[in-house]
Structures are given as structure tokens and as C-alpha cells.
């Protein structure tokens, strides 16, 4: 577990790590400005000082703010949104109840959900740790 110790060591010195990070930012921006020639630039705007640094930062902020705004328009919704028990679905699917069906833990699941569920109890390699029970 040497790697975990290294991470612990760094976490213990969070301030120093932050300082190094900021130093790196300044260094990259400064070197990019001072040493690297612009002859490979694709467009004229890239001759603005620190263009790509500004691009990265503003781009990141825009992505976060606009996406969150979009999400709060009603796109982000409660987790059981699709789980409403569709009573008609069970009869439409012609499901036959299977004995010993695994119970589904999600809220609002009723009779039909058991019928449609896979009756295999905790199949190996179903994405769950061995020995662990099902919980949604």
C-alpha cells in the first residue's frame, strides 16, 4: 500500500501541493507566452497574449455555468422519475409470475416488477461484489 501512503503524504501537505500547482500554471502560461513562437498559430486571435490560457479557463467556466443552467431548466429530475409503476405494462408484456423472483428495492415497485425481474438471485459477475446482496 505504498501508493496510498504517497497520496496520504501529499494530502497532508495540501497547501504545498496547491502552491506547486499554481506555480505550474504560471510557468506554463509564461513559457507559452515568452518562449514559444506563434508561427504555428492557426488564426490571428491566437496572437493575443495568454490566449489559450484564457480560452481554457473561460471555456471551463462557460461549460459549467451553461450546463448547470440547462440542467435546472427541468432536465435534472428525481432518480425514480421513470420508475412509476406502469400497471398497464405488466399486463401488456404478458409476464408470468416467476416463483422466487428477486425483490426490487426501488421505491414504488409493486407486484409486476417482481414478475418481470430476472429470477436469478445475485448472478455471479452481475456487477456486484461476490456475496453482496442486491440493493438498488
Amino acid at each position, binding site marked *: 500500500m505504498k*501508493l*496510498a501512503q504517497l*497520496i496520504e503524504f501529499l494530502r497532508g501537505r495540501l497547501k504545498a501541493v496547491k502552491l506547486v*500547482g499554481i506555480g505550474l*500554471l504560471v510557468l*506554463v*502560461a509564461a513559457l*507559452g507566452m515568452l*518562449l*514559444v513562437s*506563434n*508561427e*504555428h*498559430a*492557426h*488564426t490571428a486571435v491566437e496572437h493575443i497574449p*495568454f490566449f*489559450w*490560457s484564457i480560452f*481554457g479557463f473561460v*471555456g*471551463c*467556466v*462557460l*461549460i*459549467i*455555468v451553461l*450546463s*448547470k443552467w*440547462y*440542467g435546472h431548466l*427541468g*432536465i*435534472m*429530475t*428525481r*432518480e425514480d*422519475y*421513470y420508475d412509476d409503476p406502469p400497471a*398497464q405494462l405488466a399486463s401488456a408484456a404478458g409476464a408470468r409470475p416467476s416463483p422466487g423472483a*428477486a425483490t*426490487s428495492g*426501488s421505491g414504488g*415497485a409493486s407486484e409486476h*416488477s417482481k414478475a*418481470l*425481474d*430476472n429470477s*436469478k438471485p445475485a*448472478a*455471479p*459477475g*452481475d*456487477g*456486484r*461484489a461476490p456475496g*453482496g446482496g*442486491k*440493493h*438498488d
Partner: protein
Amino acid sequence: MTDLWLHPSLILILGSLLLLAVPARLKRGYLLLIPILLFARILTMHRGEFGQVHILNWTLVFGRVDGLSSVFGYIMSLMCILGTLYGLHVKDDAQHIASWFYVAGSVGCIYAGDFITLFLFWELMAFSSVFLIWFRGRRESLFAGYRYLLVHVVGGLALLAGMVLHCNAPGHDWSFNLLDVHHPTTAIYLIMAGFLLNAAVPPLHAWLPDAYGEATFNGSVFMCAFTTKTAVYALCRGFAGMEILIVLGVIMALYGVVYAVLENDCRRLLAYHIISQVGYMVAGVGLGTQMAINGACAHAFAHILYKGLLFMGCGSVLYMTGESKFTELGGLWKKMPWTFVFTLIGGLSISAFPLFSGFVSKSMIVSAGFEEGKLWVGFLLLLASAGTFLHTGLKVPYFIWFGKNQPRKETWDRAAEPPWNMNAAMIVASALCIFIGCYTPYLYKMLPYPEVAAEYHPYTAYHVFETLQILLFTGLGFFLLLKKLVPDPTISLDLDWFYRKGWRVFLWVARKPVQATDTLVGELYRVAGLVPLMLSARVAGLFDNEVIDGMVDGFANSIRGFSRRLRLAQRGQMQQNLAFAFAVAAILIIAFLWYSNAFAR
């Protein structure tokens, strides 16, 4: 041209049938052997057209080996090794069989030289991969699987309709080559729709996060590699230079980024970033220059490896803890530090950090965009790559392995490093990601236009500093706005809403107007039709009683005896019955092709 040309997919199909007969102690070796044989077969294939089968009026070409198909065949078979290694400890044979059939479908599509062969393998892919979702065994995965299947059947039908219209038009045959992208017909649009659905191009994309977030921990590792990249191959082959793909690709690249901000499930987040990354490839195909096609292929190659690696990392977390939601995870660095490192390598690769694989592949497409004079393409794709680093490089590792959130005690207790084979697969994938990023000729020599690729140099000082500035300042933005990025326990509505909630509208229509009409028609029918019918029925009844019953009873008795035996043979699980039916159908089709070919000679 030799008659003994061994189709690589055949290795997997026969291999999976024999898997059932392999004794348990040899199973692990056998599981590794078959994908390695596949890889070796693909490495030893010569260029040319092989496996031609004449059937009815068609010439099927099972093996068109050229520059484009070789690079995709190479990476698909390599990924098959990694994916199988990752799931090596899974005891359920059916899961391995499903994933091998799935890879066989993908490889078959890649080497297909005509539309019919392409379509057969295309459907094989859809029908085998759905089991990778179902095998998770949750109620949600059952529904997600059916949705996945239905959506892909629709895409397959569009493809089929387009193929039939296109190939029956005068002057066309069934061979699958570059289509006339500058004068597209309805048929060409239909074929494109079929391809775009598999490539998850909005608005035909919602199946992807739905399915990949719900598949088994190792099923998603396979799924993230094959379906979308086979579609990218098909687009490269048939639609290079189709202008509309540039716009669609750029929209895709940004669309995935926006949804990744909102996503709380790490595997769904990665799935949205597949959409984003495939956007680069689709835009590359749309640009259509030799450099852009090279870029699309190189990016598909690199993407399969790093996205596989990312799904392996998040799959390990899911497998060990049972959780994949950020709100249920946090601080795992103490328990799974190596998984963190591997996932971070995947994250740095997808973000195109210098010395990692994305850097040498993604930039080809961006440069091609700038060189074509389409500045907006270049800038928007660079913006999307800032978003990629923001989520896959920062959000995923931070909120799983660090963050302020404390997982529940049982999650915490279960967390540990995954089994050795999962680690081994992640080590190999990480090593390849770094190797590709450091030693460019390995990838560049494999591309369809190697001479163009040889002239491209990603490691110029300007490019390195441009990338570093974008990425590091994105990182600054991430840490400054960390509070805004803390995931909420929500889901995000996407266009799958229309078929997940839209059925209510359908039901309402069925219940109210349609039922009312039905009742009315029924009443009319009863008055006008039923009374005369009863009369004639009485006459027919006499005949029926005397003559027909005797015959039918004997027939029914024999059917009942047969079905009683059949009932004992089947085990009542719908998925298994379907798996069995699909396997039998696949074998029948192959046998039919084989025999008809033998008779044709």
C-alpha cells in the same frame, strides 16, 4: 485467392461454441487463447479480397482487407483480448459467449465488402450485445435491454431499407464502398441514419448512456468499444466528405460534455463522453480529407483503449463496492489507489494530455479542421476537449477517490483493489495509452494513409503549450468552481424520454379514441354482420363436427405430445430462450451460406 481463407469472426463463433465443452480448470487459459488466436489471425491477414460467396444473384465478400479495415480489425481484436482478460474470473459462460459473438459481429462488419454481409454482422452485434445488459440481472437492466434492442432494430431497419433502395437502383450493385456523398438520395440518407444511430449521433443517441450505464461491469467494457467504433468505420468507408457530418460531429462533441456536467452516475458520465469523443471522429469523417480520415481512425484506435480503460476503472469500483453513483462514493483512495491511477491515466489520455494517446490522435482532427479553413470546427472541438478534461480527467477521479462525500459503511467495507486479472487488463491498457502517446509511429504507420500521417508532427512546442494551457486552466476552473460541480442525486432527461414516457400518450390514444372507434365498429358489425353469419355458421358447424374434427384431433394429439417434451426442454427464462434462439439462427445462417456456396461451385 484461396478457398481456405479463415474468417476471423469464425474463430470467435466456433470458440464460443466450444467453450461449453472446455473443462473448468482449463477455462481461463482457453478464454485467453481464443482472443489471442483472433489477434494473430488478423495480424497475419494479407491485403486483398477474400471469402467471396456467390449466392442467388449476389456476391458476398466476407473479407475485404485493406488499410482502413486493417486498423479497425487490429484494435477490435486487441480490445477483445483486454476485455476478456478483464472479465476472466466471471464463471458464467453465457457472458463470454455473448461478448465474443458481439466482437465477431463487429469484426465481420469491418471486413465485409458488401452490404448484405455488413447487415448480417451488424444485426449480430445488436442481438448479442443486448445480453451484456440483461446479464446484470436487475429489473432496470431488463427494461434497458429491451429499449436497446428496439432502438437498434429500428436503426437496422433504416439501414436495410436504405440498402435495398440504393443497391436496386440502376447502376449500383451490393458492394459497400464510398457513396455519392455530394448528391445524396433518400436511400443514402437512410443508410446514413442506420450508421448514425449506431454511432450515437444526436438525436439518435439516447440508447447509449441508457444501455452502457446499465450493463454488467465487464459488459460495458466491451460495449464502449465496439458498437460506436464499428459505426465510425462504416462512416469512414461510406461517407467520407459528407458535409453534414461536420456539423453533427461538433454538436455531438459538445452535447456529451453538457450532459456529463449533470450526470451523477460515473458510467453514464463516461457514456456521455463516448458521444463527445465519437463526435470528433464523425466530424473527421465529414471533413473527409486524408488527414481527417487518418485522424478519425487514429482517434477511434486511441479511444477504444482509453475508454475501455476508463470503463474498467469505474467497472472495478462498481464490482467491488456495488455503487457507481458519485453521491454514494468518495474517499476511495485509501482502498483502491491503483484503480485510481489507472483511471487517471485513462482520464489524461481522453483529455489529450501530452505523452498520452489522445494527444496524438485528437489533434489530427482539430488540425484538419483548421487546415480546411473551418475555424469554428477547430475552436469548438478544442472547447469540447476542455470539457472532457473537466469531467473525465477531474470530476470522475475526484468524486470517486477524493471529495468530501463519505460512502455508507457497507460500501466502504466492501471497497478493495479488484482481482488480479482486472488489474492486469488495466495495466496493459494504461501501458498502451502511454506507449501510443510517446511513440507515434506505432499508430501512424497503421493508418489508412500512412504517408500523410508520417508528415504530421503533434509534438511541436506550440501545440504542446496550447494544449497544456487549455487543460491546466480548465483544471483551475474546476477547483475554483468545485462547489458548483458537486453531483446531485438526480437523473437527467434525455431524448429517450420520448420512448420511455411517450408510451403514455400512445396508451391514452389507444384507450380513448381508438377504443371508442372500436366499440362503434363492433356494434355496427354485430347488427349487420353477425346475424347472417350465425346462420351460415350453423351449416358449417355440421360439416365441422362430422368431417374436420376427426382429422384435427389426431393432429392435435401429436402436437400436444411434442410440446410436452419441448416444455421440459426449456427453462422458462426469456433471455436464455432468446439467446438460444439467436445462436441457432446464427448457426443456421452460416450453415446455409456455407452449403449454398459449396453447391454453387
